[in-house]
């Protein structure tokens, strides 16, 4: 598998990362090099092997259903460029 310049630009756009033409060119090469390594890994037969999700065998941690957080609206919006009455304000997006 490999990617072309167009795909690189599209992926960058999907991730909302601005990439210049030169950078996109360079990244196409770098990404294809990485994909080359992945292809090498793909040669290993892993039929019947469960994907490893954790280095230590452990169970997913769970919480009890209790309200332990919240009521800090001022903190939540503290870093926002624009706010009003603890709402975040963003340039108008309307469908």
């Amino acid at each position, binding site marked *: 598998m490999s990617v072309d310049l167009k795909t690189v630009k599209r992926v960058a756009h999907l991730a909302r990362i601005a990439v210049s033409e030169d950078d996109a060119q360079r990244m196409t090469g770098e990404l294809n090099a990485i994909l080359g390594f992945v292809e090498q890994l793909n040669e290993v037969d892993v039929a019947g092997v469960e994907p490893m999700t954790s280095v230590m065998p452990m169970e997913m941690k769970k919480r009890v259903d209790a309200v332990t957080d919240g009521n800090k609206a001022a903190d939540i919006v503290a870093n926002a460029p624009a706010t009003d009455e603890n709402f975040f304000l*963003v340039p108008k997006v309307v469908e």
Partner: protein
Amino acid sequence: MTLIDTRTPDAKRLIPGATGDWEVIIGLEVHAQVTSEAKLFSGASTAFGAEPNANVSLVDAAMPGMLPVINEECVKQAIRTGLGLKAQINHKSVFDRKNYFYPDLPQGYQISQFKQPIVGEGKITISVGPDRKGEFEDIEVGIERLHLEQDAGKSIHDQHPTMSYVDLNRSGVALMEIVSKPDMRSADEAKAYVTKLRTIVRYLGTCDGNMDEGSMRADVNVSVRRPGGEFGTRCEIKNVNSIRFVGQAIEYEARRQIAIIEDGGTIDQETRLFDPNKGETRAMRSKEEAHDYRYFPDPDLLPLEFDQAYVDELAKYLPELPDDKKARLVNSLGLSVYDASILVSEKAVADYFEKVAAGRDGKLAANWVINDLLGALNKAGKDIENAPVTPDQLGAVIDLIKEGTISGKIAKDLFEIVWNEGGNPRELVESRGMKQVTDTGAIEKAVDDVIAANPDKAEQARAKPTMAGWFVGQVMKTTGGKANPQAVNDLVKAKLGIEE
């Protein structure tokens, strides 16, 4: 998913077009908010109507370094719902990131389940009708899957000329997305499906089913085809927030698609919105890359695993489900399927009925709950939760009828008094002199008086026995409806010399 056609085209569901009949194919994705105190991956409250951003933790706001920890109750609620849908429960499921950009999604991705959902295939039996003969038709609708995911925040667009307001209180609240198979073939079936699904989650207590508050909303997939033909291209109508609108959106969308095809056009697969004011659907502004969600397993979360014992323990405490309750009401209380269907359709109604029926005649209790209580509630625009007559009060009214203390007619008056003024029905009957007159002497006197006062009518009645009914009515009137109607009837006939 592979589309499997489970239904045989049925003429009564087809939509006539200019070039012949069409069949509409419907599948639904219902988002149901999980009933829980705290959010799916944070300890912030799920309460509705809080101040802006009050129910938000640093996890929900996606501050750097925050990690999600799952709320075990949400997992249990999803399993309970799966059991209620007679579905396969997957002992291992995986959370994925669904990536897209929108201001009310601070993470830049929604934590959802893509390839391995917590619940697999199941089914719901819906009941459509009654038709002209008063019959209901049971239809089985397949469930494709149920998965857990996070809700997004809320954007408000009408507060400012150039800015949108974002409130993250809903951000991170647990949702169950319940996906049906494309098994529905009419707007009525789709409405019955959402209604039944809502009934089931309400019985289970896993979602409050309150569509006004956004606790349940549906994405409706609609396509049309020639009866029994190849599936057509579908359009998805997003975020329909009432059962009535689901029906309206399908009716409109099916006709729109038929008109395009009959004019020689083709249907573009697209996402549409339903406008309840205009009663039509329209295309959302197209976002060509919007459907590229680049799902991948969320590296912050281990797979969700549990054993069968965990599921069995939850199954043990599952409440009686509407279908089972309906069967019990029909089989052990002798109710009609029609009456039982009405009583089980809302859990609150079923609970009310069961309290009234406990230790009493089930059929009589059913009649009173359906005809009198639900009728009066409907007329007053009230919910059963706020019924002015309690189950104990209605039960007492029924007891008084059964004992012969009051007639059925007086019982209606008594019900109205209790409805308007409250009070103990038994005491009301005493204090207001509503007891049925069973003393034959008193009734006899009333009959004699009416006959004596109306000699001409008495003459007519002897010639034409159906006239006797007039005398019965008069006697009931003079006794204030308290005389036993059967006793009056017998006496009138005897006095007038009318043979049975």
